């Protein structure tokens, strides 16, 4: 199967790559099918591409790359929606927002993407922890360490 993406152009994908987001992603409730695409020119970045809207895609980074200490506080009830018992069973990704200047690039730690890879289910969860902001400026915050 193929999809014409805004970022990578025409991309091939397999049926088994399709992730179902039953509740969609906040702001885009009607879009349920996504694929995770790897970019050719970087190691850590991935693109969560909507199959319903070629113009909709999220740049994502694995959460432990953004902050190895980060562990979202997601309720059991929410995890159950994608068939997980515990957050450690899932893949945790953070959505990246690009702004001018690398110090203004941020990761959304409050609304992480959680994926159950074996069941091909995904969701945007909410972390119930005040230390997890919507905009975590990780280049800025790592600078002093």
């Amino acid at each position, binding site marked *: 199967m193929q999809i014409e993406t805004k970022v990578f152009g025409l991309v091939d994908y397999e049926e088994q790559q399709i992730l179902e987001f039953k509740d969609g992603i*906040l*702001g885009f409730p009607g879009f349920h099918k996504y694929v995770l695409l790897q970019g050719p020119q970087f190691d850590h*970045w991935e693109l969560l591409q909507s199959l319903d809207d070629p113009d909709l895609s*999220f740049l994502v980074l694995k959460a432990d790359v953004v902050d190895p200490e980060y562990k979202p506080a997601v*309720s059991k009830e929410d995890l159950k929606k994608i068939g997980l018992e515990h957050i450690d069973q899932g893949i945790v990704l953070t959505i990246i927002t690009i702004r001018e200047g690398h110090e203004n690039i941020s990761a959304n730690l*409050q609304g992480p993407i959680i994926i159950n890879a074996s069941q091909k289910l995904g969701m945007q969860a909410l972390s*119930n922890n005040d230390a997890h902001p919507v905009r975590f400026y990780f280049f800025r915050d790592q600078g002093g360490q």
Partner: protein
Amino acid sequence: MLVLARRLNQSFMIGDQIEIVVVDIRGDQVKLGIKAPRDVSIFRKEVYEEIQKENVTAGKQDLDQKTLQNLGNLFKKDQK
């Protein structure tokens, strides 16, 4: 929308496990106590709205090849 009038220290139930208590009233601010099972998610509405707004920015941002390449380089530099 269901509208209920409650006084200080009065409460109401949502289902049989979630109780909302009026803890304090001062001017235009009301403090509510929420008794609910630990696995129930409770967030201020603003949290949803803020994430929604951030998603719309992130999901529709312009990711041209140059931007992505710069990001890739930045990140390699960052990983020591």
